[in-house]
């Protein structure tokens, strides 16, 4: 179980690097699918066998929503906005990957003093989750394409979700469903807004959405 958890977290971390390095929107969406798979998998490997039915159900729902429905929404928004590539980002791709390395190192360092208080199944879980959250935040901050920012929000939610799994938080089923539902509706509304923006502006470069200021 431990090795499998390690492997899935590694996949999560590598997926983050892929997100930082790529400029193709389709690749970004595929990588979020990969992250969803890794997330639902290590939700299961963290728990002890035999797996409670509830856990399997939750894992499947997570996989469906994050791995199928949300990417489908994003792809639809991509098609309707007619964009395929990222616009020149604020931080270049190689620089983003280098910063990602520094962030990964920081994530490991932050959790060293908290070692004793973490009884998680793997020592890499918390740093990996923190790194994923930071990657999502970096995507939102440094990328200009609106769809990449939505994907960054998704990745941030993935990271927070991984924290939840790592800290073995037992939320009632209703709240978990509520969280997933919220994320789904959020992406839905964002997708619609992106469509409106692309129709109104003829581009989805958020760097150019800068008319309102003091």
């Amino acid at each position, binding site marked *: 179980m431990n090795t499998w958890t390690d492997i899935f977290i590694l996949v999560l971390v590598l997926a983050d690097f892929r997100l930082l390095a790529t400029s193709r929107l389709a690749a970004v969406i595929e990588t979020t699918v990969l992250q969803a798979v890794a997330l639902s998998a290590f939700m299961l490997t963290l728990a002890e066998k035999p797996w409670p039915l509830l856990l399997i159900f939750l894992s499947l729902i997570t996989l469906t929503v994050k791995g199928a429905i949300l990417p489908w929404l994003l792809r639809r928004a991509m098609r309707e906005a007619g964009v395929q590539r990222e616009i020149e980002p604020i931080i270049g791709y190689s620089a983003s990957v280098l910063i990602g390395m520094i962030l990964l190192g920081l994530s490991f360092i932050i959790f060293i003093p*908290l070692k004793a*208080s973490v009884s998680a199944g793997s020592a890499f879980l918390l740093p990996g989750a923190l790194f994923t*959250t930071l990657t*999502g*935040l970096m995507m*939102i901050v440094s990328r200009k394409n*609106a769809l990449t*920012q939505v994907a960054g*929000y998704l990745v*941030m*939610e993935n990271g*927070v979700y991984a*924290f*939840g799994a790592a*800290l*073995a*938080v*037992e*939320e*009632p089923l*209703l*709240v978990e469903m*509520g*969280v997933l*539902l*919220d994320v789904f*509706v*959020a992406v839905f*509304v*964002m997708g619609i*807004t992106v469509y*409106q*923006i692309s129709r*109104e*502006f003829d581009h989805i470069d*958020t760097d150019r*959405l*800068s*008319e*309102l200021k*003091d």
Partner: protein
Amino acid sequence: MLINIVLIPALLGLIALVIPWKKIRRGLLITGGITHAIIIACLAVYPKSPVASGAWIGLDSAGLLFLSITSILFLAVSVYTTGYLGREGDRKVLDSVEGFLFRNEPEAIFIACLLFFLASMSLVCISHDMGLLWVAVEATTLASAPLISFHRHHRSLEATWKYLLICSVGIALALLGNYFLAYAGHGKIHLRFDDLISGATSLDHAWLKASFLMLLVGYGTKMGLAPMHTWLPDAHSEAPSMVSALLSGALLNCAFLGIFRAHCVLTAAGLGRFSGELLVFFGMLSMAVAAAFLIRQTDYKRMLAYSSIEHMGILSLGVGIGGLAGTGAMLHAVNHSLAKGMLFLVSSHLLFIYGTKKAGDVRHALKKTPLTGVLWLVGFLAITGAPPFGLFLSEITILKGILDSGRWAVAVGYLLILAIIFIAMARIVLPMAFGLPERETSSAPPVKDYREPVWLAGPAIALAAAVLAMGLYIPAFVWKFIGQAAFIAGGN
């Protein structure tokens, strides 16, 4: 019975989404507002038994306080909206700033989202579980985003995008805070509010502090605390006025409820000083930022937005200091919502008549539209804390609380910033009401009738009267509520 305050508006919203008849839709909006208000009144007058422990939803005094504010404001807004949609609903509108024609969002979506907004805010106020609270706050973000982009043009879309993204990121951080909170209880304590309070002494302090920080930053984004406030001026200036009124008057308070609950948990765990200090810091920062941006403000709707940021800062400051200041802060929440709601409604009429959002182009409102001009002046006096309005009472209560706790520096800063804001707003508002009519703008088509329609005048006068009343005489039961609400957080 309690869940009806959420279910009824949500159901009405769904119906409004699908039916094709305009008048019935608008009628549904008013029905929703009235029903909501009636239920709240019943709940307030007939106090229910204390919340069953382990329940997910329940009404305690803080929740009831914020819920009633929301309800009153929504009632006023629903009356206004009916008339507004009748006037502006489906035709092409001339943009005031750039002069192009734009269309509005379909009414069905607008009315449905207003009702969903009410439902989700009610859910925030009645939830007793931090997880459910999170779901509800996120739901308010999603329900209000289409409201901001009611006017379909590029500036409102920009404002909507900023709002969506910044608030969603903030709320994701709040979810992290929730998880930290659950971990602080070592998985044994559920996130139910009552369980957290009763088991507070066994919570791990380090994780609790980390959790409060995350929750403060996360819900603070929604509330408009600096430096997470950047979405607020844009959203308030581009949204139609009644949406701004709801956002400022109801949503910011509900977001504050999340922080308030966390503060209560930390106080029960003995970390009240830590969370109080953080609240004081963010409160002062918000006030300072608001003052800085009010000084040379040219847009009167943005001015109102920054004033909201300032008052949220005062709220946070009051609760952070605790004691008498906490009670003052609760009173302040009520007064601010009433006054700000009224101001936004009045400003919409100014926009309609003068056709511009620039304060420099609005002159002589007292002569042109006497009622609006008077209300505008009254609102200005109320919001800056002049007697005999309610905000004077609440701000002085907070000041007394600060002085009681011996924080001289905070008191001096507080007074200084309030003074700066008074002067800055006076510079903008007074010329608008009194100034000479030499500069007439010609960007708006000539309006035949300058008089306020009754659907605008009614709610605005009612709200103004309420603020005045709160300043002159506060009924005993209101004091009781406020006292109870503040007591949870260590007020008295």
